């Protein structure tokens, strides 16, 4: 608390802080700056992961063609202009790892939890700005270490982002399981440390530092989403560390937690008594919650953006919160659906099928509530809104196939095929990326005080939206036909030859989608410096962050932190003059639009309202 109170007393002499470049931009402890650091690092990692995916998509589309350029670019990994199988697997692995952890966990939560939690709950900064700074630098170190594995002799980890042992444990099994895997594991530990420092900060800030009047049921859905995401991360990430540490022991110390009964060629390995399945339990105990850690912030951002731009309250605010809570709790007990066909006891498979299909219910509720929010709205198609609507579309498309995969019986045939690739790219990849982009467009003015160009944004949206479907929708059919994932080429099986044309279409779409991101990158970086100056509340939104000055000062509000009087969703309230009523406006100033419901049983306030109504609009007393 001490930092906070100092800020409180010092807020008027902000201009006199002697900040150096280093403390302002590098080792900053200001949540808004840290948010930007996370965002820009996240964007850079996303671009890298996207380029990796285009590289391996080229291999899939033209498996017999040489691209001399590739050799110049990648050297021995693409001798003769063809990506080598081992390197293909390394690309897939690092692509998945970066996307899931660095882009959609750190890049998404790191950016928006940091930016919005203090601003939307009304706090001067995070509970611990110092931990917050460390959180970023651990993340940065994790990124650097992960990328450094491209520059070592044996190449990056190549056992898939799930790094199942024994493949990941025995360097003899694949070159990437040498030093590359060690770097992967170290990077992961740093990453988890970063996530935990961030998560603990988010939770304590939300619990302890809300401004006056901001009770739980007045928090925007973004805050609910960040809060539950952080709780989920705190509960599940440590389990991954435990798993990773055991894997490090197996690799470096000769223990046998995951290993037993192995022979490579004729070399009998000394490990005895371990179980590779144990890793899968530990990994997925995090791994499944992880996909919700990825999607819940995107849900929160989209909920907020959809409400603001529909000029309507989010439909079923309470149901939206309870469904988030339901998802959080249930997501901890469904991990086994990734293991239906591992040979795990079939009874367990049955149990996990039940829990998995139950989690579809809160997800369905959220979707219907978004649709109901649009109903009779007055929709402003801001770039943020378009991406939020796109997020809903992808969440539906990808979520529905979850019902197939969650059904153990159907999963027998679909597991580890391209069907799964299609499913998770839609529901976790595309939906979360769209939620994130929606957030970037919507809160860009809050981050940089300027607006992004909307023409470029529309171009970005339409090309990305269409191409994303073109990339991932066809992959369902490959999976249904029995094409397994993580295949270097479709050349060796006759039945896969018919998919070569589709593969070319997918790759071309991926390339076009990639090019569309140039529009975004240009728009983003250009607007930071040259964008149109933003007004204080460009989207006419109710939440607290838009009551801070455009200049984005340290400590957020120049004077006192505002008090909150109402929930964040009073849009288009009948009787009100304007179509939005910020959370800071007391009910005494909006007598003409107040509802008895607003007073939450406060008899005195109801009495005052009744008297006012009797004088001005008697009909309102009858409700």
């Amino acid at each position, binding site marked *: 608390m001490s930092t906070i109170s100092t800020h409180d007393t010092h807020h008027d002499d902000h201009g006199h802080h002697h900040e150096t470049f280093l403390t302002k931009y590098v080792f900053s402890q200001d949540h808004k700056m840290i948010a930007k650091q996370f965002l820009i690092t996240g964007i850079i990692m996303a671009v890298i992961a996207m380029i990796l995916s285009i590289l391996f998509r080229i291999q899939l589309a033209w498996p017999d063609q040489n691209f001399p350029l590739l050799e110049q670019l990648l050297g021995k990994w693409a001798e003769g202009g063809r990506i080598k*199988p081992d390197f293909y*697997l390394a690309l897939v692995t690092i692509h998945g790892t970066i996307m899931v952890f660095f882009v959609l966990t750190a890049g998404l939560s790191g950016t928006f939890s940091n930016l919005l939690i203090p601003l939307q709950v009304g706090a001067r900064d995070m509970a611990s700005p110092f931990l917050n700074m460390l959180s970023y630098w651990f993340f940065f170190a994790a990124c650097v270490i992960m990328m450094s594995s491209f520059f070592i002799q044996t190449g990056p980890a190549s056992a898939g982002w799930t790094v*199942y042992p*024994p*493949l990941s444990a*025995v360097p003899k*099994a*694949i070159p990437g399981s040498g030093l590359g895997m060690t770097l992967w594991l170290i990077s992961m530990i740093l990453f988890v440390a970063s996530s935990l420092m961030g998560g603990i900060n988010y939770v304590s800030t939300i619990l302890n530092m809300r401004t006056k009047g901001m009770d739980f049921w007045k928090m925007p859905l973004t805050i609910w989403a960040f809060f539950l995401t952080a709780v989920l991360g705190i509960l599940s990430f440590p389990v991954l560390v435990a798993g990773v540490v055991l894997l490090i022991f197996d690799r470096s110390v000769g223990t046998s937690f995951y*290993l037993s009964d*192995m*022979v490579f060629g004729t070399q009998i390995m000394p490990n005895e008594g371990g179980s*590779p*399945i144990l890793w899968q339990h530990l990994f997925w105990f995090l791994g499944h919650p992880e996909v919700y850690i990825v999607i819940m912030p995107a849900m929160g951002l989209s909920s907020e953006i959809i409400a603001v731009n529909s000029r*309507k309250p989010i*439909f*079923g605010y309470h*149901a939206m919160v309870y469904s988030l809570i339901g998802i959080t709790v249930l997501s901890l007990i469904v991990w086994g659906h990734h293991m239906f*066909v*591992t*040979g795990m006891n079939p009874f367990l*498979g*049955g149990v996990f*099928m039940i829990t998995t*299909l*139950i989690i579809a*219910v809160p997800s*369905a*509720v959220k*979707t*219907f*509530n978004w*649709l*109901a929010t*649009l*109903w*009779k*709205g*007055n*929709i402003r198609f801001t770039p943020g809104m378009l991406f939020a*609507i796109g997020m809903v579309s992808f969440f*539906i*498309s990808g979520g*529905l196939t979850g*019902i*197939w995969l969650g059904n153990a*019986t*159907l999963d*027998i*045939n679909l597991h*580890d095929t391209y069907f799964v690739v299609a499913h998770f790219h839609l529901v976790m990849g595309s939906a979360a990326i769209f939620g994130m982009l929606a957030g970037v467009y919507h809160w860009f003015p809050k981050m940089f005080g300027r607006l992004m160009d909307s023409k470029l944004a529309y171009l970005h949206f339409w090309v990305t939206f269409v191409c994303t479907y073109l990339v991932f929708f066809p992959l369902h059919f490959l999976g249904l*036909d*029995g094409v397994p994932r*993580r295949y270097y080429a479709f050349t*060796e*099986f*006759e*039945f896969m030859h018919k998919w070569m044309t589709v593969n070319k279409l997918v790759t071309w779409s991926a390339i076009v989608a990639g090019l569309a991101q140039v529009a975004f990158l240009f728009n983003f970086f250009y607007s930071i410096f040259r964008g149109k100056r933003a007004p204080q509340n460009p989207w006419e939104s109710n939440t607290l962050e838009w009551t801070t000055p455009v200049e984005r000062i340290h400590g957020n509000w120049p004077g006192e932190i505002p008090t909150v009087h109402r929930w964040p*969703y009073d849009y*288009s309230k009948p009787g009100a003059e304007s*179509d939005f009523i910020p959370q800071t406006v007391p009910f005494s100033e909006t007598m003409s639009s107040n509802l008895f419901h607003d007073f939450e049983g406060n008899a005195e306030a109801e009495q005052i309202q009744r008297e006012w109504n009797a004088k001005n609009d008697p009909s309102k007393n009858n409700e």
Partner: protein
Amino acid sequence: MILPEAASEHGKKIDQMFEITLILTSIVFIATHIVLFIFTYIYRYNKARKAYYYPHNNMIERIWTIVPALVLTVLVLMGFLTWRSIFHKVEDPNNKPLSVEVTSSQFQWDIRYPGKDGIVGKKNYKLVTSTNNLGIDFSDRNSQDDLVADEIVLPVNKAVRFTLGSKDVIHSFYMPHFRIQLNTVPGMPTYFEFTPTITTDEMKAKTGDPNFHYVLLCSKICGTNHFNMQKVVRIVSEKEYEEWLTNQKPYLTDDLRKAFNLPVPVTEPAKAADTTATASVKPSIENQLALKK
């Protein structure tokens, strides 16, 4: 349909459920997307209009919680029962399934058929040598007549129980046409029992593809050649199967007999050692034919 035709008994059940799920989810997919696009179109911004303040409706919300819950309950029940019927097979002592063992290693499948005793014998990874690639324990009598096969051949309409194992990393035994997938795990045998219902020849006719054959693929990332780890699977009539079986050689060679201190059959002086090995087991295979039920 979009799935290749199911060629096993349980596969047909899976496909039924697949179709129900496909229809239900497609309806939801199309309906929600129509709603999504129509709403965004109809309610697009108009200066003159004000949005309708409509924060909640508990009745509607209850409906769209309960209806999906009910539909999912039905799906779960169907899934659960089918799942059980696939993995909990009641053993009928009079009609035992055929046993076949498959061992995966980077990047091949090794197939072992039981000999005349119908039982695939023990193995132990510690016994692996360059001649005893699977580490078969030939001191177990059941192992001594086990047969090598370089493809999987199965009689149609007869239950077969696969015992799956792995020598090095995890692989996955995936035969999409039969709706079978199960990981092979070092140190932990896994089992899958099923009944193929369509022979390869019938499938050729059905698909109109004279080159059609069933495949076994590896579906778990296992290293460099994961994408090319295959085995041809042939489903044939009972008669063809028996014929094929007589041509398969045993794992137990003379060298291995020596290694396991087993009596080496007396060789006819004129013949080379390896042909002898085959000849010496011939009779046992004929015995097995007699035993087949």
